[in-house]
């Protein structure tokens, strides 16, 4: 098998080197250059010395945390109830379907819904509360981000619940556990891997939703992603952008370590 394995794995290995290892190294390398292409530590100095960047980082992490939490709270019951349905494949596809509608289109829909003359405000006027500024607030950013990330949380949890061996649940029943106990001691712990990959799939992208901050957040919410986009495509300060990128990579590694699968047992 060894020889053939090497042949079919070649494109994959090429990909690993060219598109995974090299770009990461390059972004780290780039972060040590200032705007004039001189090697320096000025970017890191700016980053850690100014309260502006640090507050922005904290804010960004906080928003991502909130988005992840809300998404998880909505998704877990959804995934759980889905596994109980008759035509669950079809229903799951209906969950996936909105992800086929372009992200930008969904954000665009919310511009209409939340707008100052939009339907939510018409409803508020109708109920007597009166129109509110909804678009371009933190609230609208959170709602839209949650909406967009929802399917990406439901799917891994659903998969984890689906893969579970049903005889474990029967066993728990036979041993006298009620619904709640079964859920707490059997179903939830076994679905934890799904929850973890869901958190991975939601938290990290939430740090970088720069288009939402621009379209929905009205530039009030500045995330790490917004800052990177700004530095790369607007001010062309690739060094500073890369520095923030390195910070983002570190955040990513931390999340991965926290949510990674635990090593099983000793090595034998």
């Amino acid at each position: 098998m060894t020889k053939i394995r090497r042949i079919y794995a070649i494109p994959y290995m090429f990909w690993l080197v060219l598109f995974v290892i090299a770009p990461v190294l390059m972004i780290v390398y780039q972060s040590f250059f200032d705007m004039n292409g001189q090697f320096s530590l000025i970017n890191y100095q700016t980053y850690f010395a100014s309260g502006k960047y640090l507050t922005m980082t904290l804010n960004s992490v906080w928003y991502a945390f909130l988005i992840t939490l809300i998404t998880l709270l909505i998704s877990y019951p959804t995934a759980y109830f889905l596994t109980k349905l008759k035509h669950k494949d079809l229903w799951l596809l209906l969950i996936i379907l909105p992800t086929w509608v372009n992200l930008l289109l969904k954000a665009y829909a919310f511009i209409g819904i939340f707008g100052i003359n939009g339907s939510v405000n018409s409803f508020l006027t109708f109920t007597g509360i009166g129109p509110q500024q909804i678009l371009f607030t933190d609230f609208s950013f959170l709602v839209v981000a949650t909406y967009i990330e929802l399917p990406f949380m439901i799917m891994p949890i659903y998969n984890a619940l689906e893969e579970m061996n049903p005889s474990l649940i029967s066993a728990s029943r036979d041993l006298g556990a009620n619904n709640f106990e079964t859920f707490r001691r059997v179903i939830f712990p076994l679905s934890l891997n799904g929850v973890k990959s869901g958190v991975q799939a939601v938290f990290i992208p939430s740090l970088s939703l720069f288009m939402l901050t621009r379209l929905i957040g009205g530039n009030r919410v500045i995330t790490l992603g917004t800052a990177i986009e700004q530095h790369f495509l607007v001010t062309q300060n690739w060094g500073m952008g890369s520095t923030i990128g390195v910070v983002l990579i570190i955040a990513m590694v931390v999340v991965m370590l926290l949510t990674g699968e635990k090593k099983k047992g000793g090595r034998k």
Partner: protein
Amino acid sequence: MKKFPWSRLYLAVVFVMLYTPIFYLIFYSFNDGGTMNRFTGFTWDNYTAVFEDSRLLIIVLNTFMLAFLSALIATAIGTFGAMAIYYTKQRSTRNALLSLNNILLVSPDVIIGASFLIFFTMIGGLFRSFSLGFTSVLLSHIAFSIPIVVLMVLPKLREMNDSMVDAARDLGANNFQVVKNIILPFLSPGIIAGYFMAFTYSLDDFAVTFFVTGNGFSTLSVEIYSRARQGISLEINALSTLVFLFSMILVVGYYFISQENVSRRVRKNRQKREVTDLQ
């Protein structure tokens, strides 16, 4: 007495939440008024505008071609990548490969976009003929789709009974036959799922494309972003309706195909059980 189906109600609410914005878009695509605020009258004008906008149509075509191509290539590379990871004997190497595989999957889009921009700019410095455009976007889409495919295929490989491979070998199958007749057919649900996921990601991607697209080439997301920043145009609503209907047809088709497979498999299992019962 039946209990009130709270779970059904909850699911209904979630589904309504998921679909409201989409139907909102569709509803206003027929609006005469030019805004998404008040429905003033029914019209097809927004649709005719889409079909007369050849630039937009080319962008749609580009987007779908890009998704189709990148998912295809990524599925091929990713499937074999998953096998490479699975058949790596040394545990430490395997874990290292897996972590590397996951890097792009958990990386924020912005990082992928920015690092690919640096990467492609460097390549552009080495080879004069290379510039940002379709090729760079395609390469990036393939690159970020591969780990998704690997992730969909790998669990199937773990599910696979290795003694099937051993049995095939004992019966004289060579490597190629083992891969073609045993491993790939068994993996096909994972491969199909991987392809669809890759397709989805590619269609949905904005951030990475935005970074590496350069001037000449544009995808639907990038186009919508630039238009949405200028305000509402119902032409986009009409277009999104069409794209939505198209996805719907694809999904229903996919459902029936997978359904047929399932029933065939169930039937086969039943036959098998009957045979073993007889023995």
